């Protein structure tokens, strides 16, 4: 559709002051895309290497235990948890609850902090157990 460039566009997202709810919203989408690409590739490789025998699986483990593999692992853990908590937040928003300014801010921060804290707890557990 041709647009008359002499006419102004109505303002988009840039007119809003940034808040935690906006950060959670876009992070939820980005983390979802990350899980659907990197996460799916990782879990599929893990399964097919396990089914292909010990040599193939050890190649996967070697990669997973490299510093790059650990960075990807921590990233995927965080992505899963952020998407998880943001998804639970969304169920309440879908039901029409939690849109009041304070409640929205509180639960947005809770989503972010919850994902960070549980990611840290899981990887401390992994490091402690030596998995």
């Amino acid at each position: 559709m041709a647009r008359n460039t002499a006419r102004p566009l109505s303002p988009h997202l840039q007119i809003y002051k940034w808040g935690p709810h906006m950060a959670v919203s876009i992070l939820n989408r980005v983390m979802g895309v990350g899980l659907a690409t990197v996460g799916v590739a990782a879990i599929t490789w893990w399964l097919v290497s396990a089914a292909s025998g010990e040599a193939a699986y050890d190649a996967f483990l070697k990669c997973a235990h490299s510093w790059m593999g650990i960075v990807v692992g921590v990233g995927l853990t965080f992505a899963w948890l952020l998407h998880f908590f943001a998804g639970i937040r969304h169920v309440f928003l879908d039901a029409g609850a939690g849109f009041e300014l304070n409640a929205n801010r509180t639960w947005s921060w809770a989503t972010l902090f919850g994902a960070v804290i549980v990611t840290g707890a899981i990887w401390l557990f992994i490091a402690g157990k030596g998995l």
Partner: protein
Amino acid sequence: MGSGTGLGRVRGLGSSHSGSHHWWLQRVTAMGNVVLTVWLAVSLLRLPSLDHASVISWLASPWAAVPMVLFVLNAFWHFRLGLQVVLEDYVQGGMRIVAMGLLHAWTFGAGAVALFSILKIAFAGTN
């Protein structure tokens, strides 16, 4: 909504001939993922080790293989619905058709590999 037949207005589907089905399925699969991803994470963290023998003997049990199959079906369905929305937001015109084709290939290709791998381990047993 003012035009059309009475039945059409009751269905509320409009010219797209579909309504909230995609949105609703995304919520249903999200609920499934709440259960299945926690099950997977807890199961893996409880294993004595993540070496080949431990993972194979765990996944050979139907109590692990069946939920794992459910996890792959549910999670892959969920990501297929979600990536579709992202592509519809950012990719226009003919490129969108190409992107949707690639999304189908990625979902069903990776899904088939993942499911086959689980079943191979489950049916072959721990040997």
